[in-house]
């Protein structure tokens, strides 16, 4: 049964209010060093509020802007669409995220693009799929087709191949498991290509 216009308007307004915060926290925490300690940011009470608020609605061409709570960096995230699939799952399509550098210079800026992202608020996990590209302001970039993140633990897993490019060289691997808290990255079946010293960018 279709909603009446008033109910629909209320739902859209509610979604517009809550979806940015939900999607932003999950996406930013996914990226290296952005906000691995998501538990401090997304407390259980707020998580429940978000989980119960999205009533199976979709929003097209959402644009989210604001500041990160942990270091004040500004962000702008766009997507073709945002959809709530189940009780605690949010799906974003054609996602693009830009984060500015921290005002005190302690954290760099970065961008993230992906074809799809599915965020599980309850489990605090996120999965990116399709043409994932992460670039930071130091000249490093990461490409993958699939990336899973445990937001609470700060653990990333790329099971279908990954390519990292830095000013020093390129690293390709079949899999990557990264612990962003301890900054330990484990590559399986890996090949590293270091540029000659003279060619390395500063």
């Amino acid at each position: 049964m279709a909603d009446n216009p008033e109910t629909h308007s209320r739902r859209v307004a509610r979604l517009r209010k809550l979806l940015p915060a939900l999607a932003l926290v999950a996406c930013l925490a996914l990226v290296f060093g952005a906000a691995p300690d998501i538990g401090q940011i997304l407390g259980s009470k707020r998580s429940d509020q978000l989980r119960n608020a999205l009533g199976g609605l979709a929003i097209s061409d959402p644009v989210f802007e604001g500041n990160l709570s942990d270091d004040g960096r500004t962000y702008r995230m766009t997507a073709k669409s945002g959809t709530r699939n189940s009780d605690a799952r949010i799906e974003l399509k054609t996602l693009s995220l830009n984060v500015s550098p921290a005002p005190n210079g302690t954290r760099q800026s970065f961008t993230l693009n992906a074809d799809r992202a599915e965020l599980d608020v309850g489990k605090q996990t996120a999965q990116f799929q399709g043409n994932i590209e992460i670039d930071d302001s130091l000249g490093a970039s990461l490409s993958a087709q699939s990336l899973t993140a445990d937001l609470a633990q700060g653990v990333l897993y790329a099971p279908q191949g990954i390519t990292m490019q830095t000013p020093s060289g390129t690293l390709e691997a079949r899999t990557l498991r990264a612990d962003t808290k301890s900054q330990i990255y484990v590559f399986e079946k890996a090949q590293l290509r270091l540029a000659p010293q003279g060619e390395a960018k500063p």
Partner: protein
Amino acid sequence: MTRLAILWLLLGALIPVPSPAQGVRFATDASAPLSAKADKIIWQQAIGRADFSGAAHITQGPLSIQADTMQLLMSPSGVAQSLVSQGQVVVLSSPGPGPQDGVHRADADRAHYDLIANTLLLSGNVQVRQNGAGKAGKMSGASLQIDMQTGLARILGAPVLSGETPKNGKPGRARIELE
């Protein structure tokens, strides 16, 4: 031929060390990109170190190194500084363009490639075999240093281990055999 070999052995025993290894030049290209492969690479970003294990193998132009394990050490800015190989280290260089540039193989317990100074230092039970251009030879010693820009190698008699002084404060002897 046997007399010649004995003569070379005697001469080898008299050669003061360190000395340039007779006509030994590895084919190198320090300006070529360095490629490293391994079954597993563990990168500890906080301390700037990457550990390679499982069929660890690197190539740079005509020269390759394989070993049980390798460690790549980086500066805080992420620039590669040195590569340390340990366990059954084998250095191979393909024939170079010169008449004396045959195929060289060096075996050692450990290798330290200083990527800034462009030197490769092999240590521990070093053996060098040379083939090509109508001559073959074998050398052994405690360590071997290769200038990666020129390819020239020096075999040294005394053990060269970090933090360790050679016995009696004097270097040992290198051994050279030519066939």
